């Protein structure tokens, strides 16, 4: 079967003082090939942990995950990751960063060059191949990170707050870019964000998680991502359902944060 299946996955961190944290508890999900899913939730609800498990950086304490029928047991180029910040290689220029994955596999240099050229134009950095990473702005760096991930042609792209450090305008452009890439490549994309609007725009499916233990609280099916492809995102935000859905989710998360605060105060 194709797609990503997450079967009863739990993650418990043992703390050095003997206690433990249930970062994730009994997560069950099926994500179809080509689906665009955004994940929201209050801080500390286990979003990063969830993504790290999918990427294979962490082994879950219980449960299994399969991608296209085979088990996930560790990191693999079939699952690419885009980090929020600091994961680019500063000692390489933009082209070498993007070509890193193919190069590690031993792809011939001519093919790498062609691929890099193509990706540079997809992310809108045609003339920046020779630049060093530290010469690029934050938004440009995230474009490089995206291109580097795409260079390996992964089946699933995992993004942990990829646009979190960008200013509003750059962020909007990058959101369009993510939608474009999603539509053009047909990849499965799972994207964590702290912005409710971004989650609405970049999620056919939107997962709201709740903390302690980390679990799926509510799921939405949304039309906005499909509407946003190649369109003005500000137009999409004027959709009659956009505002009410946003407010509903905001309230939900707000209540959860309140509850956490209350609980820590009582503790």
């Amino acid at each position, binding site marked *: 079967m194709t797609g990503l299946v997450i079967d009863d996955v739990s993650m418990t961190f043992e703390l050095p003082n003997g206690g433990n944290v249930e970062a994730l508890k009994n997560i069950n999900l099926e994500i179809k090939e080509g689906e665009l899913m955004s994940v929201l939730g209050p801080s500390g609800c286990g979003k990063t942990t969830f993504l790290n498990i999918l990427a294979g950086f962490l082994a879950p304490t219980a449960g299994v995950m399969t991608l296209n029928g085979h088990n996930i047991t560790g990191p693999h180029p079939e699952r690419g*990751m885009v980090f929020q910040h600091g994961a680019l290689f500063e000692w390489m220029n933009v082209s070498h960063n993007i070509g890193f*994955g193919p190069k590690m596999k031993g792809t011939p240099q001519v093919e790498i060059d062609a691929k890099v050229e193509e990706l540079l134009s997809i992310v809108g950095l045609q003339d920046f191949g020779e630049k060093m990473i530290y010469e690029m702005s934050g938004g440009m760096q995230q474009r490089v990170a995206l291109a580097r991930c795409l260079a390996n042609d992964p089946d699933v792209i995992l993004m942990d707050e990829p646009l979190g450090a960008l200013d509003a305008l750059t962020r909007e452009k990058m959101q369009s870019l993510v939608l474009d890439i999603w539509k053009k490549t047909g990849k499965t994309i799972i994207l964590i964000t702290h912005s409710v609007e971004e989650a609405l725009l970049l999620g056919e499916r939107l997962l709201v998680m709740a903390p302690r233990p980390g679990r799926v609280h509510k799921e939405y099916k949304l039309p906005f991502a499909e509407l946003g492809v190649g369109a003005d995102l500000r137009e999409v935000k004027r959709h009659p359902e956009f505002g009410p859905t946003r407010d509903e989710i905001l309230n939900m998360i707000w209540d959860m944060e309140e509850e956490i605060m209350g609980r820590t105060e009582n503790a």
Partner: protein
Amino acid sequence: MGKEILDVLGVTLWMIVGIIGIFALYLAVSGLCYLVQRAYYRGRDRAKGYTSLKTVTFGDESAVTGNRMASVAAVITLFLFWGIATGSKLLPPILPQPFVGESAFEYTAVNAAGESATGTVLVQVNAADSDDKSKPDPASVVGASFAKTDVVVVAERRAKLVKVQSNDDGGDQDGYTVTAINGKPIAPEETVSFDDGDVFMTAKGSLSVRPATGMTMEALYLPPPEKVWERFIQLNKEGYLGVGLWENVFWSLIRVVVGFALGCLFGIPLGFAMGLNSWLRGWFEPIVEFMRPVPPLALIPLIIIWFGIGEQGKISLLFLAALWIMTIAARSGVSGVNIAKVHAAYSLGATKKQILTKVILPNSLPEIFTGARVAMGVCWGTVVAAELVAAEKGAGKMIIAASKFSLTDIVIIGIIIIGVIGYLIDVLMRIAERRLVPWKGKA
């Protein structure tokens, strides 16, 4: 014990006063130069807009940059101070110079019979570096009494004892005393001044003649700049104790380069091993953590006992000085890799080995360069100190040998060269850093 502590306190207080004095003088000159500079540049080059407010951003290193003009003026001031304090011939005399030349004073003596008479003491003060063997002629003084003319030849700033009564008629009888100098009464343990100096009478009645010392420093303590320059030219040509000036410097540098290279050769792999493997980290941690705070200079005695004073000892010492610094730099470079980079590389399909060579190693380069800069500085300081203790050749050896013969000018040349080379080493390392790890501090 208590008294020694008091001594330390006393010295400290005295130093505070001295330091404040020197700083105040230096700052006063600085203020003066500033006023001159401001008057000269008034309105021409005023900082515009927000730049003028930049000093407000404390902690931002780029906010205040050194004023080039101030630096130049400061160096010139230093040389001026040096010249003035040493009575340099390049400057007009500003401080009173020590007396050199011929002078004389009269003494009044009373003999055993109670008669008094005056005699003359001819004083000839020779410059410190003169080898003039001539003496004033006592016969040049006309008029005779039982107090005969005496002659004193003394080097500038030095004192000389003269027993004026020894050549006088009846001078060896009891009761023969000198009572006045140039008419001013004198008694044992008293000092009286004459035109060009002082006369002190010892308890036994001899006179100690000290020509005026002026206020400039003696070349023995601080030679004037032109003397140092002459010596520099001479050293350049002839070397010192059979070893050329630059040969000395070259030997010090060779030791540093070899010791530092050995330190890198072993320290960097060791640091990598410690950063990557917990067994090796545990294994080497005690020795590294123990050796790190031991100043290399403290090892010199042991090194001499083990290796003697040959090259092996010095190179071993420099190796040890560089080794721990490079080990720790490489270790923290490896441990400091952002885990996101490693994760990213794994997701991109890199193998463990590829992650080591393509991610962890290049990522640690900036830290290694920082360590290398520190290590070079420490090695340079250590080599000079080691040569002070024991060496055949080297910058440190040259200055310690010169100091034994009070050749202060060579010592000063040595110190200046050591400072300049230390500075050049750091500049070179910085240039290399900018070339090789341009991303440093920009991630």
